């Protein structure tokens, strides 16, 4: 079985969940921070986007790592879930949860929904297949240019604004991001527990930070479609 | 018959060493040719099973629980004694020996007690090596505390769960051997009879509690580690399933039962609250280190204890026993509590209770320290009674707790039936007429880890054992008897449940053979018990199948044996016409109510031989000689 032999071990599977999860969470944090550049105007966002594209092979390494992480995360979670269902064949007629939160108990479902959302998100903004009409190039003059050279780059700003002006698309994003939030609420602190960082003194803080971080990410991300719908951002387009 | 305890000659300090040298050995290659059957998986049983399997013997272990870790040793709270003298307060093997002999009111075999004190230190070493998390000082060294019946700190403890931790240590040592296939473990299997072939114990007959199957097991030696019989009182601190069946069946097959009347009543239990009650809960004796025991000076004082002023309280243990105070030994403290309650000064709804007050200790040490020391016990008290002991004093009352009596064994822990070894609480040997706190764990582990593994080898090396299998007619005969007994019980079509009979028996025993006894009461009980037993066999109600998990049948079989055993206990209490330790005959007391021994006539072990149900058994004696601890009046004043 080679690499996938970790799947035979309950704890190693969990550790793979935690590490791949950690990579994805870090990505979400960076991605959120990048998205917030929209508030600094068209130029900032578009040059950030151009910068990312200019990374070339590094961008591809990042992409490969993310894709592999996502695949391992999904495969492992499904394997764990089937085992878990098998380990509890009879359910209680009455069941009261003491500690398990709604977000913890729905990880597999929020996870699958996040997957769908990510696929849609990629089709929408990365492959630009769902709304190709929002794709425009932008012609601009670099700040440090000595002569009046006009360059062309991808107008992310316009694409985002046009996309989110559609209330239906915004709604999909808002719901999707909230689901991501639920997933993260459990995921972040769970990662620490699985990797063995739980001590009486600091773990309650980690748990609070986990929820806090999830909420911050959700607020940051949904603020963008809301701002656009309200006309606070991208009014000129 | 005068019984011989086979105590080796020589000075007491040298007896065990000399004996160990003189005993014959079984070579490592031959050890695997022997099979030992061990019944019971408490401290004694588990430690013996592990040690014997480590030596190379084949061991089969039997427990009626679902797991060996459930044995009632697990409930011991306070601690385990050893003569390490770590606190430098004057302890020694000699002093532990002396305290135990004196604490037992001079009714134990000196040589056994000395050996117990000798190996006590090895037990602590062994348990630490096994990973038992004993309490530690900040320096990392082991911590000690004081306990009832001793004026020094020699007790090792693991919070209030010492028994649990020691048992889990022995249990894991045993499970290691189960994993190595050196031990075969039979759970949910109850021993119902002993098989004796040509006078030698060769096997047992068991019932599988899951499917009712009756099975025989053959071995070269049988070890009973089946605990005590406090449940003869129905209400005791013992677990629900604790019973006398294994030892009583052995008695019926010819083993002598020694000192059955020596039962210990523990002073610090939560008083009974109603008829429904199924057991009494012990509060660790360690509570008496900081708690002060008192009752109101005036009978019938029903005020809230916190409203009773200091000068209207009677701290009776401190008053009666100034040098030991609240740490007076169990039998003494229990009787003192009974005395004040009999005077009408008892507290609580039933009037059967005394206060155990921590107000002073909390004032002196702070609530935090008390919480650290006794937190889990206080919580347990609050759960059961609904009262908060940080706020209001606890109420406690004595309850049956431990039985010093048991099957008679010689110095090698073998009964009069060759091959039948008895260890732990199930034998009679080390505690005399009263056991000191934190000594039961010590004895159980001493027997299992450090004594039986030596002596059983000697038995094998000096005995020629015929090869027998379970096809032997004697096995078939015993199996048939067991089956018939079960059939008979199943066929009684009466009205009363086994629990009802048990409760009635318990009342008789508690009233007439409990904390204090007298001739007339014992004679009354000797009439009542056979009557109850007769009714049992006429008027028992039974449900379910014999070939199924049947909790009513399990209970009925145990109660049936208690009903016979109770009579034996009464005979012993009646014939022992003196007071000593836990056996208090009202006719024999000093003017201040202390027990009055009769060393001239009763300085011996009484070992009883079965002569048929309902018949008076034959009383044999083993004289006790005290060469090293002079016979004195036991005083804790």
């Amino acid at each position, binding site marked *: 079985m080679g690499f996938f032999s970790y799947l035979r071990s309950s704890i190693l599977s969990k550790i793979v969940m935690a590490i791949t999860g950690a990579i994805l969470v870090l990505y979400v944090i960076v991605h959120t921070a990048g998205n917030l550049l929209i508030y600094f105007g068209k130029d900032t966002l578009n040059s950030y986007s151009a910068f990312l594209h200019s990374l070339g092979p590094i961008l591809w390494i990042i992409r490969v790592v993310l894709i592999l992480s996502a695949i391992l995360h999904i495969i492992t979670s499904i394997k764990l879930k089937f085992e878990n269902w098998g380990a509890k064949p009879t359910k209680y007629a009455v069941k009261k949860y003491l500690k*398990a939160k709604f977000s913890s108990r729905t990880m597999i479902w929020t996870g699958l929904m996040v997957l769908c959302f990510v696929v849609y998100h990629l089709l929408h903004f990365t492959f630009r297949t769902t709304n190709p009409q929002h794709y425009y190039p932008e012609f601009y003059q670099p700040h440090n240019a000595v002569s009046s050279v006009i360059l062309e780059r991808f107008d992310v700003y316009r694409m985002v604004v046009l996309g989110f002006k559609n209330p239906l698309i915004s709604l999909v994003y808002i719901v999707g991001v909230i689901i991501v939030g639920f997933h993260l609420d459990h995921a972040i602190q769970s990662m620490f527990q699985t990797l063995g960082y739980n001590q009486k003194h600091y773990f309650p803080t980690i748990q609070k930070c986990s929820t806090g971080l999830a909420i911050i990410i959700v607020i940051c991300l949904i603020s963008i479609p809301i701002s656009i719908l309200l006309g606070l951002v991208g009014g000129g387009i | 018959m005068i019984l011989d305890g086979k105590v080796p000659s020589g000075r007491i300090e040298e007896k065990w060493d000399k004996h160990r040298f003189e005993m014959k050995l079984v070579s490592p290659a031959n050890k695997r040719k022997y099979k030992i059957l061990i019944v019971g998986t408490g401290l004694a049983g588990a430690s013996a099973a592990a040690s014997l399997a480590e030596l190379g013997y084949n061991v089969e272990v039997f427990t009626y629980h679902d797991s060996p870790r459930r044995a009632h040793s697990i409930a011991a709270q306070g601690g385990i004694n050893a003569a390490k003298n770590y606190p430098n307060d004057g302890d020694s093997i000699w002093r532990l020996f002396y305290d135990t002999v004196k604490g037992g009111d001079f009714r134990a075999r000196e040589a056994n007690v000395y050996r117990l004190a000798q190996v006590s230190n090895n037990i602590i070493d062994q348990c630490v090596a096994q990973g038992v998390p004993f309490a530690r000082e900040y320096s990392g060294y082991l911590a000690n505390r004081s306990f009832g019946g001793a004026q020094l700190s020699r007790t090792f403890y693991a919070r209030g769960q010492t028994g649990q931790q020691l048992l889990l240590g022995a249990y894991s040592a045993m499970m290691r051997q189960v994993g190595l296939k050196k031990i075969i473990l039979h759970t949910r299997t109850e021993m119902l009879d002993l098989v004796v072939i040509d006078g030698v114990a060769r096997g047992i007959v068991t019932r599988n509690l899951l499917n009712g199957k009756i099975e025989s097991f053959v071995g070269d030696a049988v070890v009973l580690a089946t605990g005590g019989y406090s449940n003869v009182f129905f209400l005791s601190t013992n677990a629900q399933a604790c019973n006398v069946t294994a030892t009583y069946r052995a008695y019926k097959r010819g083993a002598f039962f020694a000192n059955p009347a020596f039962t210990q009543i523990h002073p610090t239990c939560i008083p009974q609250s109603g008829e429904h009650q199924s057991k009494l809960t012990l509060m660790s004796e360690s509570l008496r280190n900081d708690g002060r025991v008192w009752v109101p000076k005036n009978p019938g004082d029903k005020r809230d204890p916190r409203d009773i002023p200091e000068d209207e309280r009677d701290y009776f243990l401190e008053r009666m026993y100034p040098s030991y105070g609240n740490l007076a030994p169990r039998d003494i403290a229990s009787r003192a509590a009974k005395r004040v309650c009999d005077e009408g000064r008892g507290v609580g709804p039933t009037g059967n209770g005394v206060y155990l007050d921590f107000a002073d200790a909390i004032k002196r040490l702070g609530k935090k320290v008390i919480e650290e020391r006794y937190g889990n016990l206080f919580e347990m008290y609050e759960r059961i009674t609904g009262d908060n002991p940080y706020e209001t004093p606890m109420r406690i009352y004595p309850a049956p707790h431990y039985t010093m009596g048991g099957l008679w064994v010689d110095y090698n822990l073998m009964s009069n039936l060759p091959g039948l070894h008895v260890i732990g609480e199930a034998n009679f040997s080390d505690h005399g007429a009263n056991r000191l706190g934190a000594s039961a764990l010590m004895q159980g582990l001493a027997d299992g880890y450090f004594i039986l593994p030596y002596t059983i080898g000697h038995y094998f090396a000096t005995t020629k054992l015929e090869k027998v299998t379970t096809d032997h007619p004697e096995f078939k005969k015993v199996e048939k008897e067991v089956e018939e007994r079960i059939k008979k019980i199943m066929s009684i079509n009466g009205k009363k449940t086994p629990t009802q009979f048990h409760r009635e028996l318990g009342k008789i025993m508690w009233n007439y053979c409990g904390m204090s006894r007298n001739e007339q009461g014992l004679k009354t009980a000797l009439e009542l018990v056979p009557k109850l037993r007769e009714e049992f066999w006429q008027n028992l109600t039974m449900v379910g199948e014999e070939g199924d998990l049947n909790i009513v049948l399990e209970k009925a079989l145990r109660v049936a044996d208690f009903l016979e055993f109770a009579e034996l206990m009464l005979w012993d209490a009646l014939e022992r016409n003196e007071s000593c330790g836990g056996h208090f005959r009202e006719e024999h007391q000093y003017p201040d109510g202390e027990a009055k021994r009769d060393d001239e006539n009763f300085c011996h072990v009484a070992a009883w031989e079965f002569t048929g149900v309902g018949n008076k058994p034959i009383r044999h004696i083993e004289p006790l000689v005290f060469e090293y601890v002079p016979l004195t009046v036991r005083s804790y004043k």
Partner: protein
Amino acid sequence: MKITLHIWRQKNSNDKGHFETYHLDNVIEDMSFLEMLDVLNEKLVAEGKEPVAFDHDCREGICGACSLTINGIPHGPEKNTTTCQLHMRKFKDGDEIWVEPFRARAFPVIKDLIVDRSAFDRIIQAGGFISVNTGQAPEANSILVPKQNADNAMDAAQCIGCGACVAACPNGAAMLFVAAKVSHFAYLPQGQPERKRRVLAMVEQMQKEGFGNCSNFYECGAACPKGISVRFIALMNRDYLKASYSEEKLEFAEKE
């Protein structure tokens, strides 16, 4: 107090099982939950019916024999309390109580409320010990244990092996039970030589017994009658990870 009980009755492991409803009129506040069941059983036996079979023994919260899932919580609603120590004063007159066995694939029902928890014993057999023979031990005070470590070890060692963690876990996982034993020894110097082998062997056996995986629900720690913390699971995960890439692992894998 009047109490209505819905109790799971199952003749044997092959039976499908069902709830049966019983009414008790004279329940006293001072009764423990099991004493209340005793009263019910006495009534049933007197009526010639089979009593409800349940495991119990010490009735002081330490042997770990008692079980029962009461109103959806193993050992019932009171925190840090076993069923035998749960008292009826925690319920109200007229309450309806659902009583079910501990449920998990690794704990098959034997009869009524009795389940087979022998899987725990086999996990201990696999490695829940320190391999010291009787007689090998050095002088007790030659092994120093910092108080903090002794306290941590004791916190973990308190486990009574009742199986409430498995019963409470939506995945039927035994992580807390295994972690408690692994941590008990991991905190002590005596436990170090076998530390890696132990965690590998015990986790391996845990999986063989058919327990589920950990989803960090923390239900186990909340239901544990001894209040054993889930931080021990974290410790075990760390130990297991280290052990998985050690020489001991290679040796262990060869043996398997």
